[in-house]
């Protein structure tokens, strides 16, 4: 019935003799290989999380330094935006590769869920860009814009993590989303440049912390990952 290497009457290349394991070895194989197979099939979410964590840490950190007036700004604002833009683009590439690459050759519901979820990030952030652009064009004062756009950018990321946590029944992802949503909202109370410091440390730091937690959980000898 198979296309590949299916030649009728060929001798079994791997007879079952000597291949039956002890129950202990079989159980160990199941545990270790299940984890490894899942990693190869679904990618490593900690890479994308760490990528966005670093992007927020560096990008918003740079924005904080650029908009600080005491004693004086460390560098001009365009440098900060450039750092945020480049770091976000790199994180976007990592996320896309980590979604698309492991799923090759797989079709079915879980593949569709992963792709649709991935597309919603691009869709939502594109819409957010135009929302901020619209407000700027309509004359929203720059002082308000500087509090609004970074807080919204982080809040929207948190919303998507909450959705992902609900979708895959992933408690850690859901908690990360809840934390990120609150960080984004709370940052607006800090004023500028304090809001950038909050988003950089609490927002980016939260993502990096969860990425580290996922790596630790994946280490051998830890079951139930």
């Amino acid at each position: 019935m198979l296309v590949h290497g299916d030649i009728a009457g060929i001798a079994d290349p791997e007879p079952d003799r000597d291949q039956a394991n002890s129950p202990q070895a079989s159980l160990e194989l199941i545990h270790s290989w299940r984890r490894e197979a899942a990693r190869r099939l679904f990618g490593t979410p900690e890479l994308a999380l760490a990528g966005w964590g670093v992007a927020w840490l560096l990008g918003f950190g740079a924005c904080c330094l650029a908009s600080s007036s005491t004693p004086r700004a460390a560098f001009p604002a365009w440098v900060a935006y450039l750092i945020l833009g480049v770091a976000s683009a790199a994180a976007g590439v990592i996320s896309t590769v980590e979604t698309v690459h492991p799923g090759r050759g797989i079709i079915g519901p879980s593949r569709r869920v992963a792709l649709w979820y991935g597309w919603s990030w691009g869709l939502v952030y594109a819409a957010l860009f135009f929302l901020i652009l619209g407000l700027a064009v309509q004359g929203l004062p720059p002082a308000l814009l500087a509090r609004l756009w970074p807080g919204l950018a982080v809040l929207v990321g948190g919303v998507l993590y909450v959705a992902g946590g609900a979708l895959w029944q992933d408690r850690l992802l859901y908690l990360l989303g809840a934390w990120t949503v609150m960080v984004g909202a709370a940052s607006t109370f800090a004023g500028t440049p304090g809001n950038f410091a909050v988003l950089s440390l609490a927002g980016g730091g939260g993502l990096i912390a969860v990425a580290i937690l996922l790596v630790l959980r994946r280490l051998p000898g830890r079951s139930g990952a």
Partner: protein
Amino acid sequence: MSPDPAPDALRDLPSLDPVIHAQPRLRVVVALAALGEEDQVSFPRLQQLVGMTAGNLSTHLRKLEAAGYVRVEKTYQHRTPVTYISLVRTGRRAFEDYTAALQALLADAPHLTTRERVP
């Protein structure tokens, strides 16, 4: 050589599913079980995942298919034949039973059959 020899190691473990107990097929079943219930994986991707030659994988898939554990579906994508493999519900249950049997065997006296212990 007989077509499907009874391995010596299985003689003591009569209730462990011999279709799944062979190490290469166990690897295939675990990999397929990691996917969702209605997900399918292409033959080359599965081959790369479990690290077997196409011939070996075909052989093991044929045994799993004969046991009613996997479904092998041939289809066309852009006029190229593609084979997709999935673990059907019977296979998923057999794998769960097999894992439970292993755990019961290890928890209890090794000489007793697991059938008496697994609910």
